[in-house]
């Protein structure tokens, strides 16, 4: 401490000179000579003090409002000297709680010797004035605490301050302050507070700090959780009336914060874990609250789970805050709990129940039990000589019969029979067998010396006794093989010799020997893997084991198809009843959309052919006289429809144009199903449908549905799997969709995964999140919600290169370029810094169909595509077989284009794969690849040293 104080010394600069501030910094001391050394003022280093709040002229434009304390005309307006004494003590006693910004500077600044001294002297003083209220002595006590609180870090707000201000009060005037406390010169006392310029301002903060405390007190007394007595402002202090006069005088300075409020607030120091308190020489009176230093060992207290600091009911809520991890001091949040307190986890005390409402207690206890910091650390548990991993720990704790009251230590576990015990001791419990935790059991695990082995472990005498009672032949030190159900056989022999638990008396006998008996598991073992999958993962692990994969792509890139494929691939029930209903509705409304597009096309074609006809007629009739009636009679073309259908068509188009197609659903389906059938069978529509290639708005899947329009428009229509896959979108609301699947499901038939590998990742859950491009908002506004994903799968439809859409201004924009633009904005988004991207080039089948008809160079981004001379092609073609098709060339070319783009944006590598959304195998391959990337990235973090060895592996994986 001294060193620290010295460090501050050399930098000598004048005290904070407040421009335009017109007040004296010191008032000469006229009191009697002091019997002790007056601590020296240490120059304040002005740069270190964020004076802005105080000295900035903008904050205090009016000199009158400077926090100068009006000199008190001696005990004049005060009725009793004792009050003035309290008032005078205020700067020292009350200030500690103030919350100000410059505490960090101050606590470095304050000469520790000074404050320490003041602290001790303060205690002395309070001893000398027993007539003072307890609050005052507390205030002083807290000022004494200053000495150690300078140890605190910045984060621990109040404490730091407390001492900052206190010492600031002391800086020049420590002597006076003491005098003030000694009732001798209240004016000096207050003077000192005025001198401290900024400190007087801080006191307001303290008022606030105090008030919640008052609130707590008040609330406790009324015992109503929702009591409205709480005031966020600090008006609630007790001595208001007495100091009203002063309060009015002081513009910014409030003295009326009673000593009581300061006293109860100052022990914010109590937040300091005990260890630190002790090492700094500050001792909490035995049995007292660590925060208010009141009470004795009989007062009811709540202890911090991590540092065992104890708080009385008035302080516990202040010291523990909102208890995100249960009963811990605010400063202990995040640290692990004391092992002796593990049993208390989640068991509420009477005190908390009194302080908080039952739902609040419940939530605190839940948090206490479930939060990660309070869990047993897997590395503390050693099974069969091997420390557990996180996965093993979960496996152990979530099995049907987990070991009870697990504590850190060394254990042995017999995987075959499920016997469990402490290293060197007899079995303790029979837990679920076949858990893959820890190493293999050792012969001397239970320190037996009987020479008889069960599953490779030499058993203890007690167990031997048990075996004898069970009627097991134990002559000749046999080696037994005991199964989970209690059947046993001799090693190397096939036949089962008997059942240990066969006799009903065995259970009684075992309890006599204090040996475990098998407990009934909730569900019989056997389908271990299934349990794993369906088991609820504890909350704290959920975050860890959940690997989120974001699937995005521009509109029409096939993300929804890939998502639906993933559901079909990895979920036993791909879609729930509700989802199916939703999809049915979606398909049905889509078909109306398609019909609408057809009808629109029909009108256009009709118009065109009519115009054509007229032209021909005009040509023909140019010589003869035109017959109007004939013209009218001839107004029908092959695209004309009857009046009834015409009315329906007009209505449908009108509804579509106004945009509330949704509004008429699902009622419309019932009503118009027969009409739709009639319409579809109409020759005109069929003729239009034949020219569907000329309807750019009609999606390629439309024909799949339109050909079955009659079925689909029926009420009793049930979408088939194929329908679901072909349908546009996932939900009608276009919202986010996510699906979970386990690594095991993903790897179920994956090749090249050895068992150990699977075991490791058994717990890892993957969540595929599919989001519509529009769902991200303008300029990917909401992308920052996805900064916790592990991988982004970006989907681009290969067939987009010759497709256009019209933007709001009617300008045709190439979809591939739009995809590229979207890709750039996603990749460049700040929340995806250092994110891995997998590009899925989708709709390869469509590319194959159209590449020969429309060259890739239609898209201006691909204008240098020249498969024969292209260098890219050349380098790529070596990796694929010689007879690569044009489509494959195009795929590689586009892949390289995107890789280059990605590299130029981020300087990193882009993983690319190819898929065909409608082909489940290709989607499976793509998603497996995604998993490989995540695993590979994980491994790279572990073996970062061998990075160079791995670095080319995944990118060379290219289907």
């Amino acid at each position, binding site marked *: 401490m001294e060193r620290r104080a010295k460090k501050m010394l050399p930098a000598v600069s004048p005290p904070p000179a407040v421009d335009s501030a017109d007040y004296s910094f010191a008032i000469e001391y006229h009191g009697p000579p002091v019997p002790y050394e007056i601590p020296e003022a240490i120059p304040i280093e002005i740069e270190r003090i964020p004076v802005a709040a105080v000295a900035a002229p903008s904050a205090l434009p009016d000199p009158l409002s400077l926090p100068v304390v009006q000199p008190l005309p001696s005990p004049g307006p005060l009725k009793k000297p004792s009050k003035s004494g309290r008032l005078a003590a205020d700067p020292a006693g009350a200030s500690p709680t103030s919350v100000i*910004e410059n505490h960090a500077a101050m606590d470095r600044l304050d000469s520790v010797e000074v404050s320490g001294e003041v602290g001790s002297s303060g205690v002395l003083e309070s001893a000398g004035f027993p007539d003072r209220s307890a609050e005052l002595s507390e205030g002083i006590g807290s000022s004494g605490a200053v000495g150690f609180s300078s140890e605190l870090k910045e984060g621990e707000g109040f404490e730091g301050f407390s001492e900052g201000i206190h010492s600031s009060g002391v800086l020049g005037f420590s002597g006076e302050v003491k005098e003030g406390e000694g009732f001798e010169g209240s004016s000096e006392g207050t003077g000192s507070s005025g001198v401290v310029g900024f400190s007087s301002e801080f006191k307001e903060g303290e008022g*606030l700090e105090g*008030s919640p405390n008052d609130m707590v007190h008040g609330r406790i007394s009324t015992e109503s959780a929702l009591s*409205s007595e709480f005031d966020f402002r600090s008006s609630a202090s007790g001595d208001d009336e007495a100091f009203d006069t002063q309060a009015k005088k002081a513009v910014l300075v409030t003295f009326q914060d009673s000593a009581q409020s300061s006293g109860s607030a100052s022990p914010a120091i109590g937040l300091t874990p005990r260890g630190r308190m002790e090492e700094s020489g500050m001792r909490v009176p035995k049995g007292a609250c660590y925060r208010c230093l009141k009470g004795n060992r009989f007062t009811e207290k709540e202890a911090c789970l991590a540092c065992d600091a104890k708080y009385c009911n008035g302080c516990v*809520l202040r010291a523990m805050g909102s208890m995100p991890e249960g009963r811990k001091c605010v400063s202990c949040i995040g640290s692990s709990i004391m092992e002796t307190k593990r049993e208390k986890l989640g068991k509420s005390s009477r005190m908390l129940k009194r302080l908080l*409402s039952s739902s609040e207690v419940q939530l605190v206890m839940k948090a206490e039990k479930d939060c990660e910091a309070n869990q047993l650390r897997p590395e503390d548990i050693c099974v069969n000589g091997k420390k557990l991993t996180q996965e093993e720990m979960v496996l152990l704790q979530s099995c049907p019969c987990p070991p009870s009251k697990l504590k850190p230590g060394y254990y042995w576990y017999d995987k075959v029979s499920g016997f469990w015990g402490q290293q060197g001791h007899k079995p303790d419990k029979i837990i679920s067998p076949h858990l893959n935790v820890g190493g293999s059991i050792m012969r001397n695990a239970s320190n037996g010396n009987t020479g008889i082995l069960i599953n490779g472990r030499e058993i203890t005498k007690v167990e031997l006794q048990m075996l004898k009672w069970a009627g097991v032949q134990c002559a000749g030190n046999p080696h037994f093989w005991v199964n989970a159900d209690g059947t046993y056989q001799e090693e190397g022999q096939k036949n089962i010799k008997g059942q240990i638990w066969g006799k009903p008396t065995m259970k009684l006998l075992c309890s006599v020997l204090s040996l475990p008996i098998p407990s009934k598991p909730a569900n019989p073992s056997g389908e271990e893997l299934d349990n794993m999958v369906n088991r609820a993962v504890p909350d704290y692990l959920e975050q860890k084991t959940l690997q989120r994969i974001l699937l995005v792509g521009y509109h029409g890139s096939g993300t929804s198809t890939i998502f639906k494929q993933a559901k079909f691939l990895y979920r036993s029930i791909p879609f729930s009843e509700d989802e199916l209903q939703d999809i049915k509705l979606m398909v049905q409304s889509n078909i109306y959309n398609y019909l609408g597009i057809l009808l629109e096309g029909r009108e256009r074609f009709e118009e065109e052919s009519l115009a054509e006809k007229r032209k021909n007629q005009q040509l023909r009739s140019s010589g003869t006289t035109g017959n109007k009636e004939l013209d009218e009679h001839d107004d029908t073309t092959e695209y004309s429809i009857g009046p009834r259908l015409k009315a329906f068509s007009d209505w449908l188009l009108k509804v579509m144009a106004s945009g509330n197609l949704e509004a008429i659903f699902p009622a419309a389906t019932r009503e118009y199903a027969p009409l739709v059938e009639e319409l579809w069978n109409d020759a005109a529509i069929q003729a239009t449908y034949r020219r569907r290639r000329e309807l750019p708005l009609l999606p390629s899947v439309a024909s799949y549905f339109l050909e079955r329009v009659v079925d689909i428009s029926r009420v009793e229509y049930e979408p088939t799997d194929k329908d679901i896959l072909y349908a546009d979108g996932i939900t009608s609301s276009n919202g986010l969709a996510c699906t979970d699947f386990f690594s095991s499901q993903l790897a179920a038939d994956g090749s090249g995964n050895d068992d150990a590998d699977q075991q490791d990742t058994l717990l890892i859950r993957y969540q595929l999140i599919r989001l519509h491009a529009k769902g991200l908002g303008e300029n990917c506004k909401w992308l920052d919600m996805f900064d916790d994903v592990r991988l982004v799968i970006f989907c681009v439809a290969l067939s987009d290169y010759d497709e256009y859409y019209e933007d709001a201004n009617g300008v045709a924009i190439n979809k591939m370029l739009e995809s590229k633009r979207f890709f750039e904005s996603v990749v460049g988004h700040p929340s995806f810094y250092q994110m891995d991207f997998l590009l899925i080039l989708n709709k390869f089948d469509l590319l194959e169909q159209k590449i020969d008809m429309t060259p890739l160079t239609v898209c201006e981004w691909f204008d240098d595509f020249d498969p024969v001379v292209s260098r890219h092609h050349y380098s790529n073609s070596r990796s694929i077989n010689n007879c690569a098709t044009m489509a494959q060339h195009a795929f590689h070319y586009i892949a390289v284009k995107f890789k280059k783009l990605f590299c130029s944006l981020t300087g990193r590598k882009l993983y690319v794969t190819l898929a065909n959304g409608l082909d489940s195998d290709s989607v499976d391959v793509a998603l497996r690849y995604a998993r490989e990337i995540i695993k590979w990235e994980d491994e790279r973090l572990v073996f970062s040293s061998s990075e160079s060895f791995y670095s080319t592996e995944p990118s060379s994986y290219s289907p």
Partner: protein
Amino acid sequence: MSVAELKERHIAATATVNALRERLKQRRQALLDTDVAGYARSHGKTAICFGSTDLVCCRTLQGHTGKVYSLDWTLERNRIVSASQDGRLIVWNALTSQKTHAIKLHCAWVMTCAFAPNGQSVACGGLDSACSIFNLNSQVDRDGNIPISRILTGHKGYVSSCQFVPDQETRLITSSGDQTCVLWDVTTGQRISVFGGEFPSGHTTDVLSVSINSSNSNMFVSGSCDATARLWDTRIASRAVRTYHGHEGDVNAVKFFPDGQRFGTGSNDGTCRLFDMRTGHQLQIYSQQHGNNDNDVPIATSIAFSISGRLLFAGYSNGDCYAWDTLVAEVVLNLGSLQNSHEGRISCLGLSADGSALCTGSWDKNLKIWAFGGHRRVI
């Protein structure tokens, strides 16, 4: 009439509209001879003094494990609901800083939450394009979760903001990424009216926030990515009452002024503005001078007025939270520079109903309650 002809006329009409809009803007500019700050200064008003301890962090609500995106106070001022990226809604007792309810959501990507006027239910919405209502009194299920009591579906985009109509328990207004706002009947789950969308006077892009006029709950204002705010009358869904231009970026937050005659906005362009509801004039811009690098301007994410309207609290993406003096347009306090301030972006803030406390939510996973310290009068 041929398609080409129609297109031509459409283009011409658009051009006309734009020209008229430009004229309107110029005319407004000409009429607007002063702003609030200029007028106040000319009358000798000065900024109120605000010490660093006049507003102090007195509670830190810890418990979320993800970024906090939204918060709302109850009317009886002691409870707060917050929504976070960890997929939970937490109802806090602001007095004890304890959680009273923790609700796990089906869709973790929640953007907004709101308390019902009676304090018995909360609503939330997000990327699932639905608004879910939870009754806080309903029985929890086996896992301790509160079941959804009502789900409002119908939006075609994310639900960016929701607010209960103050004097009608069963009415709720949401704004959405599908360019519309919707007035819902919570009891039936039906849409009462849709604002925007197919009607030409609606927002042209995602709507980000709504604020209902507290003195006349038929009026509400919405802010959108199209850089405008629009005023709506719930009785007339067909058209926006008025459109307020001025911002140069997405309007992230709108909030009615306490007197119900003005409203404030916070935007991606880093400014907050005050608009007059009836004249449509922009009364004041609240912006700090920043370096000329446009990318560095922190965006205003959320705003709230103090009970008197004298202070405008605005949260920014860089973790600052300014208290603006609305009268003279000066920053009187920066909560971001105070002791105990947030470490991340301030994503949401709200004032308790009596104005005595401000709650801020941040990407640092915490919420903080700031209260007027000392004997400062609540303003």
